[in-house]
């Protein structure tokens, strides 16, 4: 760094420096402040969005609960449109699928759930997939249902395995593959399924005695 002899020289040097760098310093400050303000705005905007989404979604839940299907449908659509970046959009999708099933429109319900299974996070995609397979069971697409379940990575689905196993059993029963169905149900039971119907389903699949003695 240079050493200046007099005050004038120092002032002179400062002026020079300012002339060269003043604009960029101001620009830097302005950009910095704008960033902070922008960030704050963005945060509060996001918060506000989430709060609005939550309130709208609550209305949707209330409408569904009251069996007010028409307004539920509209609310679900609005939540998805206006707050597509929040998770409330996904939950609204789940509710929409239910509404479609109630109207007997299984094909559209399937589409919605397929979309959710593909794009949502792990937990929700499992929920969507389980419901999707249940629809496939209802529409007789048993093989496709089996395929969907077989594609699930067992490592990521440990918590859901009981539900998948019971569904697997249902699919096998529909395909009249009783031995496989039995195994699937028993897996579900062993892993602590709380499904109230499961025990009845297992009892209904008791193997004839000859097979039992072989065990």
């Amino acid at each position, binding site marked *: 760094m240079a050493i200046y002899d007099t005050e004038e020289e120092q002032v002179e040097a400062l002026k020079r420096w300012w002339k060269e760098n003043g604009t960029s310093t101001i620009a830097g400050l302005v950009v910095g402040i704008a960033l902070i303000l922008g960030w704050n705005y963005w945060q509060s905007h996001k*918060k506000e969005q*989430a*709060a609005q989404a*939550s*309130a709208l*979604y*609550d209305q949707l*839940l209330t409408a*569904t*609960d009251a069996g007010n299907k028409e307004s539920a449908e509209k609310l679900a659509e609005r939540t998805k449109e206006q707050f597509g970046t*929040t*998770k*409330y959009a996904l*939950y609204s999708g*789940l*509710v929409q*699928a*239910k509404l479609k*099933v*109630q109207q007997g429109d*299984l094909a559209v319900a399937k589409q919605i759930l397929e979309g959710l299974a593909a794009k949502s*996070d*792990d*937990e929700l995609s*499992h*929920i969507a997939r*389980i*419901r999707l397979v*249940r*629809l496939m*069971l*209802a529409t007789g697409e048993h093989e496709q249902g089996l395929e969907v379940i077989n594609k699930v990575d067992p490592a990521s*689905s*440990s*918590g*859901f395995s*009981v*539900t998948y196993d019971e569904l697997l059993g*249902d699919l096998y029963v529909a395909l009249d593959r009783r031995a496989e169905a039995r195994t699937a149900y028993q897996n579900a039971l062993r892993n602590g*399924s*709380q*499904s*109230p*119907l499961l025990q*009845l*389903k297992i*009892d*209904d699949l*008791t*193997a*004839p*005695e000859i097979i039992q003695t072989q065990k």
Partner: protein
Amino acid sequence: MLTKIREKAQGAFAWGILIIICVPFALWGIQNYLGAGKEPPVASVGDREFYQQDVNRAYEQYSQNLQGMNIDEQMLKAQALEKLIKDEVLLQYVHAEGLVTTDNKAREFIKSLEYFQVDGKFDEKQYKALLNSQRMTSAEFVSRIKNALMMEQFQRSIIDSSFATQYDVESFFKIQNQQRDVDYVIVPAQQPAEQPSEEEVAAYYQQHQDLYKVPEQVSVEYVELSLDDIAKTIEVTDEKLKAFYEEQRDQYTTPERRKISHILFAINDKTDEKTALEKALQAKKELADKDFSTLAAEVSDDKLTAKTGGDLGLFTAGTMEKEFEEAASSLQLGEVSEPVKSPYGYHLIKVTELVPGEVKSFEAVKAELTKSYQKAQAENAFYESGETLSEMSYENPDNLQTVADALGLTIKKSTLFTRDNGEGIAGDPKIRSAAFSEDVQQGNNSTPVELGDDRLVVLRMLEHKVAATRDLSEVKQDVIAALLRDKAKQQATEKAQQVKSRLQAGESIDAVAAENKLEVKKMTGITRGDRELPWQLNQAIFKAAHPVGGKPTIFTTALPSDDQVVASLSKVKEGVMTEDDKKQLELATKNIARAFGQNEFSALLNSLQAEADISVKPQIQAQN
């Protein structure tokens, strides 16, 4: 079945709500600050740490809901911790998902809570007082409520969005309403006529020692301090009672009811004192042939009451000027006073309603008085004696006599009782658990056991019988009976097996039954809920394999009487919806959907828990 699902669903949901309401009171945060640095956490979920206090508090709430049930404390604590962890995992997830609760919703929810209501309305004071007592700020509480509502919103997202298809509903009824046709015979268990030999009896006794065990038993001696007993000993004299009566007079007094009206002649800038008084005297004269309320409406300067005939409502001493009060309280019903002066001016006062006060006489309430006097006096004595009882029984741990003498109590004795069962004083689980506590087992006095608010018991062991096996000579008859039963059962089982083999070989059930002098029962269209059959048989029928290739399924099952059933299942008919079911189709669909949703939600929780970073201190786990 349907109702079962429903109960289950509702139970689980109600439990959820309960947690939501309880969790906010759990004081998590505060405990953590206090606990930090002093003791290691017992568990952690992500960044969140739980201390022993958290577990204790959760346990307290948990056990309150299970009051009266005798469940092991350690087990409950482990469950409480599990619950804490589960909730925390869910909470962290919904936060990460970006769920929020609006201020408005939280406010409405808090307002709807009964805790904070007075006469059915939210009460700010009550709210603040309750939070204070929990040492919680409003901000903390609101944030806790918000968390809880967030969790509930998510739970509803999964459970309420669940559906059941037509296929699901039909499958349910196919299984639930299934019907089965069965022919069966009962092979009775008949006791052999001949008595078993001595050797057989001895051998059976040896093999079944555990059947002849007597559990550990104790009896105790105890002293009991009871408020009622003390109260009875309190001496009562008329003198003391009278003093007490004077103290409690208010309780036996109904105050006088006096309603008054007035007409005011104001003294102000326009009207001086003299004029006001003259007007008042004039008015008083007019009252001879004019109604008081009419006149009040016409001339009273108290415009507020003038409209209602000068009515001032019930008169309460201490709220008016002295002169006014004296006049008002000395008037008879209907009488109008002379003008009375107050800072406002001159009043004419009238008593419009008068119900004289009543004081119940000492004689009338003497019995009642005696009781409450004795009780009031006894409370102090009870408290003091309780202290003495506690101290002396602790200082003289090897006997009860000292403390009994000091307090003038008699030592009573219980009969023998076990950990789980007892009579008299041992009927109380608190007494049993004290009797089997380590201290008492070592021969010391127990600490005082509180039975309700008004009884205290200290006990010590009188007799201790360890668990033992009863001698053969004592139980010989039982052994012989058991042996005979066993033999009968074995015989019946063997015979049932023979019958079964022959049926499986294709012989007709009628022929085999006739040969063995058994009666064949033929049932068609048996349903799950059928009450005609013993339920063990019903269960077995619905667990039997479907008949294959036109061949009936043959199976055996035992009845509680040891009789054996051999049955032939010839037909399984798929269930269909009954007319009743159809009527309730909507409800059924809803309930099935809900059951699916509950299942999916619990699967989701399990999945979250499997992925979460949870650590639990080993010893807690070991107690699990």
